C-alpha cells in the first residue's frame, strides 16, 4: 500500500491511498496478475454509514469485511491504514486472544470504532496511538486544519513513531508505504523513493486530489497488487474510489 497526506499552500489537506493486496497468494499466468488481487476488485465498495439518515462516516471497503482500511469522517478527519510486517506479528496476538488475553484491538475494528465514534482529529490520534493492538500497523491520519496530519507507526503494544506534518518547516506531505520511515525499504520494493520524487516534483502549490492520483498512478507505486485508489478531501467530505489495473510492463509488487 501507499498512503499520502499533503497540505496545500492554503492549509487544505488531501489524503489518498493505493490499496495493494494479494502477494504470494497465487499468480495467474494467463492474465499476468495476482489471483487474489483480481478477486478482490469486484468486492470493493463505497460505504456511507448513517445514523438517523445522516452520514456519520464514509469508507472504501471490501464487502464482507466489517473493519475499515480507508475512511473519512466528513469535516473532521480522514484515515487509512497500511500493513506493517513484523516477526512480532498478528498471529501472536491471535494466539493470545484464543487463550483468553483479550485486551487488544483487532486492527480493522479499531479503525472502524475510531471512524464511528471519534469526534476530533486529536481524539482519533490519541486512540490510534495508545490503543493496544493484536497486530502491528501504520495509521495515516489527517485532520481538517493546517498541520493536522500524521503517520503513526504501531507495534502491538506501543507507538514507535509519530511523524507529523509541519508545512512551515518544509514537511508539507507525509508518505507511508510498508516500511518504517527510519529504515531503508527493500531494494526490490522501493515505492517510497519514486513516490517522494513525484511529490517533490508536484510541489506544494500544485497539490490537489488529481495531483495525488497522478502520483499513485506512477509505476511502481501502481503495481500488480494494486486493487484500488482512494482519494479524500476532508473539508468537503469528498471520497472517491477507483479500481485499478497495471498493464505490463509492471512491477509484481
Amino acid at each position, binding site marked *: 500500500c501507499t498512503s499520502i497526506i499533503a497540505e496545500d499552500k492554503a492549509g487544505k489537506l488531501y489524503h489518498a491511498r493505493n490499496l495493494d493486496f494479494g502477494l504470494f497468494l*497465487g499468480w495467474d499466468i494467463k492474465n499476468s496478475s495476482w*489471483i*487474489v488481487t483480481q*478477486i*478482490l*476488485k469486484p*468486492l*470493493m*465498495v*463505497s*460505504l*456511507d*454509514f*448513517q*445514523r*438517523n439518515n445522516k452520514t*456519520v462516516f464514509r469508507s472504501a471497503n471490501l*464487502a*464482507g*469485511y*466489517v*473493519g475499515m482500511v480507508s475512511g473519512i469522517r466528513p469535516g473532521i478527519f480522514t484515515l487509512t491504514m497500511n*500493513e*506493517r*510486517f513484523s*516477526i512480532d*506479528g*498478528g*498471529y501472536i*496476538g*491471535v494466539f493470545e*486472544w484464543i487463550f483468553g488475553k*483479550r485486551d487488544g484491538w*483487532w*486492527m*480493522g*475494528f479499531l479503525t472502524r470504532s475510531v471512524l464511528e465514534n471519534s469526534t476530533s482529529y486529536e481524539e482519533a490520534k490519541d486512540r490510534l496511538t495508545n490503543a493496544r493492538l493484536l*497486530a502491528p500497523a501504520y495509521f495515516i491520519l489527517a485532520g481538517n486544519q493546517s498541520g493536522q496530519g500524521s503517520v503513526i507507526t504501531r507495534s502491538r503494544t506501543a507507538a514507535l513513531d509519530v511523524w507529523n506534518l509541519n508545512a512551515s518547516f518544509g514537511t508539507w506531505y507525509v508518505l507511508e508505504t510498508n516500511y518504517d520511515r527510519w529504515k531503508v525499504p527493500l531494494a526490490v520494493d*522501493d515505492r517510497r523513493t*519514486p513516490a517522494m520524487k*513525484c511529490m517533490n*516534483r508536484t510541489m506544494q502549490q500544485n497539490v490537489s486530489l*488529481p495531483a495525488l*492520483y*497522478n*502520483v499513485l*498512478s*506512477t509505476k*511502481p507505486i501502481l*503495481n500488480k497488487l494494486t486493487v*484500488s485508489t482512494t482519494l479524500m478531501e476532508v473539508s468537503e467530505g469528498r471520497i472517491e*474510489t*477507483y*479500481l*485499478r*489495473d*497495471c*498493464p505490463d*510492463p509492471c*512491477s509484481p509488487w
Partner: protein
Amino acid sequence: LAKDPYGEDCRYQQYPPTGATFRGSVPDYIINLDLPPRERWVQLAHEKKDELKTIVEHIKKVMIVFFPSGKLLHLLESKMAWLGSTLPYPFNEEIEGIAHAAEVGLGDIVVFNVFYEIFTV
C-alpha cells in the same frame, strides 16, 4: 543500484481516471447503523455473495497448497466460528449477519475479517 526495471517517469494528467490503468468505479451502499448489527450488511452481502464465495474458496485452495492434508483447513473451519463468537459486539453480530445473507459459512467470514492479523507475519 540498478534502475528499477518497472519504474517510469512521474505521470501527469491521469485524472479523471481513464485508460488502461483504470478498471472502473465502485458501487455505493448505505449501512444503516440504526439497524440491529445482524441486519446492517444484509443487502450488500446478498448482492456480493458470489464474489465472497469466490475469495473464500480461493483462500481455502491456497491453504491446501501449503497444508495438503487438509487437517489445518478442517481445524480452522471448526475453530473459526468459535473465534467469531469471541469477537467484540457489534462486530460479532455483523459478521454473523453477513455469513447468513451471503450463504457462506460463519467461519469463512470470520477468517476474511481476521486475515490482516494472520497475514502480518
